[in-house]
């Protein structure tokens, strides 16, 4: 009887000590999401913000209300930041703060040649999402000695502003984009 009491006490005590640690541990570092879930969610945030910016800011003010233009040289031209720059500046700010993931906006028909696919996975991924509308592409690749989970999502012409600006740009290699076309892809990488 005495022993039972002791044992219960000990168990109760250890539970009281261990349980919060388990719960807290759960919150902080137990991996619950697959890299695919993580990149899917990241992409959802990115593409939603990107669509909102393009429709509510660029398309409305530039194409509809014609009050201000969007320009690559937004400071010199006192203009709006391009959707692609908005995206890249965010990616650069993320890059300054973490190595846990990175992302970029690429295309097989890039205005800026630095945005052409470079790695094998980028090439395969962009080709895949252009050929299979509505699908994403996932793969792993090794870059500079690190293995990455790499996800490629289609970047669509969600507003007329996307189409008109790209088709008319002096550096574009393609000028027959239509609303709803795949114009490129968002590439998200997570080191494994």
């Amino acid at each position, binding site marked *: 009887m005495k022993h039972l009491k002791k044992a219960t006490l000990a168990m109760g005590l250890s539970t009281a000590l261990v349980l919060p640690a388990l719960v807290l541990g759960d919150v902080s570092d137990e991996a619950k999401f697959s890299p695919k879930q993580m990149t899917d969610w990241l992409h959802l945030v990115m593409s939603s913000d990107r669509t909102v910016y393009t429709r509510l800011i660029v398309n409305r003010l530039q194409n509809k209300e014609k009050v201000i233009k969007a320009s690559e040289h937004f400071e010199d031209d006192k203009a709006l930041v391009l959707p692609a720059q908005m995206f890249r500046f965010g990616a650069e700010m993320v890059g300054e703060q973490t190595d846990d993931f990175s992302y970029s906006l690429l295309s097989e028909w890039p205005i800026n040649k630095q945005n052409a696919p*470079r790695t094998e996975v980028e090439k395969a991924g962009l080709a895949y999402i252009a050929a299979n509308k509505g699908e994403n592409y996932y793969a792993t690749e090794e870059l500079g000695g690190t293995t990455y989970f790499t996800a490629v999502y289609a970047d669509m012409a969600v507003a007329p502003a996307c189409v008109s600006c790209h088709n008319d740009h002096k550096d574009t290699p393609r000028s027959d984009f239509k609303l709803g076309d795949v114009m490129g892809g968002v590439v998200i990488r997570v080191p494994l």
Partner: protein
Amino acid sequence: MFMFGKNTVYWLAWVALTGGLVAFFLLRLFAENPEEDKTVFLPGHTSDGHYQIELACNACHTGPYADRDAMQQACEGCHGAALKEAKDDHPKSKFTDPRNADRIAVLDARYCVTCHVEHRPEITGAMGVTVPADVCYLCHADIAEDRPSHEGMAFDTCASAGCHNFHDNRALYEDFLVKHMDEAATDIEGRLLQANLRDIVEQLPDYPLDQHPLNPVDLAAQQWPAEVTVSEEITADWLASGHAASGVGCNGCHVATEDGEWLESPSHEVCASCHRGETDGFLAGRHGMRLDVEKIGQTLPAMQPASARLPMKSTAGAELSCQSCHGAHRYDTVAAPVEACLSCHDDEHSKAYEQSPHAALWLAEQQGEAEAGSGVSCASCHMPRFDRDYFWGTFTHNQVQHNQSANLRPNEKMIREVCLNCHGLPFTLDALADPQLIQNNFSTPPTVHVDSVDLARERAAPGT
């Protein structure tokens, strides 16, 4: 058993000598006094950019076991803000992206020291660059596919022909060339920025307006300790200064500490309590970098013209401080931008200034024959006013850039803030690329031609 042999004396001498040397070096290296002369450890002639602070080893080598990343932090600590300002075309963030892993295997552009190795005079080129001039080729060999006009251009001419810079292309990018391609050589209506501190002082963070409201103060209201002698020259100089007109009396500078102690020679930090931006520029630039204790981690003696690598007059003054150029009490805004410079600097470019067209304009302005902002002093180009943004452009302060390197080298850095105020871009590019014009202080028309505007024009409007 130990025997005194013939060699014992040598052994003892060797031990004593080695011990002595070790002690000598260790004492130097870990001296209590951080100012201890560490010259013996310098591995080679330091570059022009850093020689002034070469005895503050820890400014760059942050610790005995500091790695490349620690050194990178030190580089960014001093140069990071300027690179951001310059809209650096090759920022670190471009190369930390894993998709560029193969590129950094060829040229690790995440680190400044990949291209700027210090203490290697035999391979150090302009701007402290220690990589060969064909470095652009490593990543941009296929540029002609994109720009057929570049077919056949020599692989070391990207930066040397006046067309591109690695970091700062604010005045060189293609659309900018196109926008400015038809400008006339000179716009005589052009004016330089004027001081606006008075207009924005209320918004300027940390300006002690409550202690020094912008009203004129007179001599009768001034106090100083009995043992201090104040000459008539001093009072006259002060009364004529902007300080007397803006609420700054004797105690404004001479009693700057909480304890009310009288400072005989107030330091730059006292100036900084009202002129923070200017002082930061001074501390970042060639005149004050030795005094930036926070950045270099120790106190070094102030720079002296006699220690400079540029030619200086033998009559040049001693240690550099704010007063060296501004003159205590007078703070003469006419003397500082020319007379002060020429009292020390003695190179060909400086000596040619007084005969130059720019100097004639400056003289006319000072004599009241021309409008404010139409004259060009030494400082107009080397310490120009720039519109510094506060709170992302909520207001701007036309602050004087006291950090000379902000627009010195490569000299294209000077284009936007300085030259374009009065000159067209095509003329400016040619003038800055002409070594003879730099020598004669822009007294003759350029004889060099930079092709970049022509190439941009051809692509924007073929055949025009």
